[in-house]
């Protein structure tokens, strides 16, 4: 278990031990002379021992440390983790300020579209690197590198370095890359570290006022401008209190960067002083209020997580209800929840077929310059056409349409 430095000059970071995988523990002791001395104990030493030593040297050099003793107890950590843990240990020893030891980058994924699919967002505790590398393989619509609730207060500093490195060096595709920051003012330090690596979305917890969103937006803008980041960094808020729910519309419209809102049910039910149940009747008002505010602001409403990762039936039921209420996605705590939620948020074949017929009738009417859309003898109201267009477009994004079926992307106002 890592502890903060007990001597001013010594820094420790990371974890090792029987049950630890893909992490390492670093003890860093600066010296006045004698160069860098490295002790290495690693289960992968026969394969990467030389590589690890070389990397440790390079990281210390990048942090302008020239004389030190560093002891590494490695449990098969990947290079981006090794760099982050050494940097955290050095910083905890009070050195390396203003410098970063960045790992080799992977190419950035294409920028995220404002209205892309966000059915599932998989939470990854920011301090547990073993979950990072394969997270994208499970194809959630988004992953969340969590700096907030999943991280012990004593590990916030080291975790934001690790998350920064993960954003830079880990291929999470096809998932959108979200980072959940801490509440302000700690959240500002998170932004300093992670914004230069261009996360797609900053997830803001426990939002109650539009001003909180504005403060974060301004800081994101400054850091992004500084780092010459020319791609969107969106904001998504989690409302976790009665007051947050009351201010939902103001929050939803606080910033041009806002793309979605979600609700944190643990905190919300605690705020109300009610018990959180499996059916969720106690939060139905808050959830529908949030859905309404989000839609009024033309952003997405996303539901809470389903906490019992062993109960797939309960999850499917919850997700289907969420869809009928107007949510477009929900949080995930385990990769096995992803396909269940994707199925629940998928329109049925019957819905798709019906929508396709309406779209075809609409396109026919457009072609013939008719103001009225009709299907057989029935007249189709404009809102029905809009809903059908939206459904067909979503079905296409979900891969539920055959390629020769009409695509309607051009007909949709997606902003």
């Amino acid at each position, binding site marked *: 278990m890592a502890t903060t430095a007990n001597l001013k000059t010594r820094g420790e970071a990371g974890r090792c031990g029987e049950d630890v995988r893909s992490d390492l523990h670093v003890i860093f002791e600066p010296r006045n002379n004698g160069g860098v001395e490295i002790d290495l104990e690693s289960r992968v030493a026969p394969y990467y021992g030389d590589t690890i030593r070389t990397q440790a040297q390079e990281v210390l050099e990048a942090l302008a440390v020239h004389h030190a003793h560093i002891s590494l107890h490695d449990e098969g950590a990947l290079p981006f983790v090794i760099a982050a843990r050494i940097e955290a240990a050095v910083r905890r020893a009070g050195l390396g300020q203003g410098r970063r030891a960045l790992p080799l980058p992977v190419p950035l994924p294409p920028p995220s579209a404002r209205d892309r699919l966000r059915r599932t967002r998989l939470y990854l505790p920011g301090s547990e690197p073993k979950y990072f590398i394969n997270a994208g*393989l499970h194809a959630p619509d988004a992953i969340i590198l969590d700096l907030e609730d999943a991280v012990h207060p004593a590990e916030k500093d080291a975790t934001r370095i690790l998350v920064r490195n993960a954003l830079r060096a880990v291929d999470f595709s096809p998932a959108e890359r979200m980072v959940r920051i801490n509440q302000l003012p700690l959240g500002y330090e998170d932004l300093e570290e992670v914004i230069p690596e261009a996360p797609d979305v900053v997830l803001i917890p426990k939002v109650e006022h539009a001003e909180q969103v504005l403060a974060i937006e301004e800081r994101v803008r400054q850091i992004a401008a500084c780092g010459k980041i020319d791609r969107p960094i969106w904001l998504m808020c989690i409302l976790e209190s009665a007051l947050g729910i009351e201010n939902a519309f103001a929050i939803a419209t606080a910033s041009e960067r806002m793309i979605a809102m979600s609700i944190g049910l643990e905190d919300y039910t605690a705020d109300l002083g009610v018990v959180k149940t499996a059916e969720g009747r106690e939060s139905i008002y808050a959830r529908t209020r949030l859905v309404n505010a989000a839609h009024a602001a033309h952003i997405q409403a996303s539901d809470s997580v389903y906490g019992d990762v062993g109960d797939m039936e309960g999850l499917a039921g919850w997700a289907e209800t969420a869809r009928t209420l107007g949510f477009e996605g929900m949080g995930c705590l385990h990769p096995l929840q992803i396909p269940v939620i994707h199925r629940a948020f998928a329109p049925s074949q019957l819905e798709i077929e019906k929508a396709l017929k309406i779209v075809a009738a609409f396109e026919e009417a457009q072609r013939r310059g008719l103001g009225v859309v009709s299907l057989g003898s029935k007249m189709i109201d404009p809102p029905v056409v809009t809903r059908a267009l939206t459904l067909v477009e979503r079905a296409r994004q979900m891969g539920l349409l055959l390629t020769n079926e009409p695509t309607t992307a051009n007909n949709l106002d997606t902003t």
Partner: protein
Amino acid sequence: MHQHFELVTNAAGRVVPTEVNGRKQIAFPGVGMHRPQGPKAAPPIHSAGDYPASGDKRVPDLETALRKCGLRDGMTISNHHHLRDGDAVALMALQTAAGMGVRDLMWFPSASFPTQAGVIELMEAGVVHHIEGSMNGPLGDYCSQGKMRGLGVLRSHGGRWQAIQDGEVHIDVAVIAAPTADAFGNATGSLGKSACGSLGFALADSMYADHVIVVTDNPVPFPCAPWQIQGNNVDYVVEVPSIGDPAKIVSGTTQITRSPDRLKIAEHVARFIRDTGIMRDGFSFQAGAGGIALAFVDYLRRMMKDAGVKARFVRGGSTRYLVELLREGLTDYLLDGQTFDLAGVESMARDPRHIATSPFTSYNYNGKGFFNQMVDVVVLGATEVDTNFNANVVTHSDGRLLHGIGGWQNCLFAGCTILAVPSFRDRIPVIVDEVTTLTGPGEMIDVVATERGIAINPLRQDLLDRVKGSQLPIRKIEDIQREIERICGGKPQRPRLRNTPVAVVKWVDGTVLDTVWQAVPGVV
């Protein structure tokens, strides 16, 4: 080690010794290239006149039995491993021999387990000279470090039968742990407090050894029926209070992995089998009892139900997941070489469609065919696989002995061989330039399924054609390798090994496929 041999390069390009434990060897000449000649080995003729007219072959204890068998220095004692890590009989036999002052034995188990780590002391004391059989854990480390006086010989289950029948290994005394037996020596693994299911791994020992001792903790009056070991091959029967720890003989229940990454691999395998059309009415498959294999069976079961498809037979190692297939009518037969959990043991004892097989029927290459040639698809593991699809199952990537070959090599003869493996473990790549120890030639391995995609051996153009237009994540094996090397931070260093052989890996026909070299102490 005082061995005199030369080293030669075999057809797989691996350097192998020409002599092992005093016996001349044939270097692997290529798959299907070795044609042995001459008659099989045979035990001496016996006369019923030399055995009790009553048919009661019981003697008071194991020492008496071993004495009557004429056990002496330099002989070979064999055991089976159906009791797995719960076995008490193998160590009992060797320790009894030690008490009799016998030295330099060759121990010839069908596999060894950590519970037999006590054999190390017997090797140190000179009672056991060396082991020919799978070694892992402490025994594996002992052998890897070059401490054993002879060379280890790693054989597949089929290869062990072949070595016995071809006379490569002569068993002087077979000591067979029997969960139930009668006084004549008929024995079964299906019944009794120490029930383990099949006794197939002991069958060759019972037929070819000079002397056969059955050790049981559940004596029943004649006849012990149905019998798996025939009393007509047995010299002596010994009753003991316990042949092993039932809790470690079979698992109460085997569990599907919960790891999402491993489930992803299992799902890829099942989808591959479905989408290539291998899954069709009357097909057959085999999968082991590891977490990925069990998960694969679960996925395939659902796909078979959805498609209304039924298998003709499924090969075990059986588990409750295979037993469910049988019960649900998704397969006509379960042909089972060993039984991993209680559900498997019970099913074999009760269901006539759950049939105990032996390495002879399923695996032996030097015979007139074997069942596994007829299996449509088999799902196996591996520690390493190279970009030519050569695979290693016996050593860690650093050269230390990890586990035995089991039926792995014999399974490679199925219609389609799929390795279901993670692309890397922690930071250790599984897909490498060259495997540390060759256990299966790449020409026998058709598909490598990982969490990052499925690679098809270019030799299997038919499979490549069949996946065209499918949704399967088909990738070149080199492409997956490049990705994991990027993730892991470059190619791994080659393991540092001494130029001293500590064991050899036999191919299914008895030729030498590769050498296990002494590990350098202190690097692990």
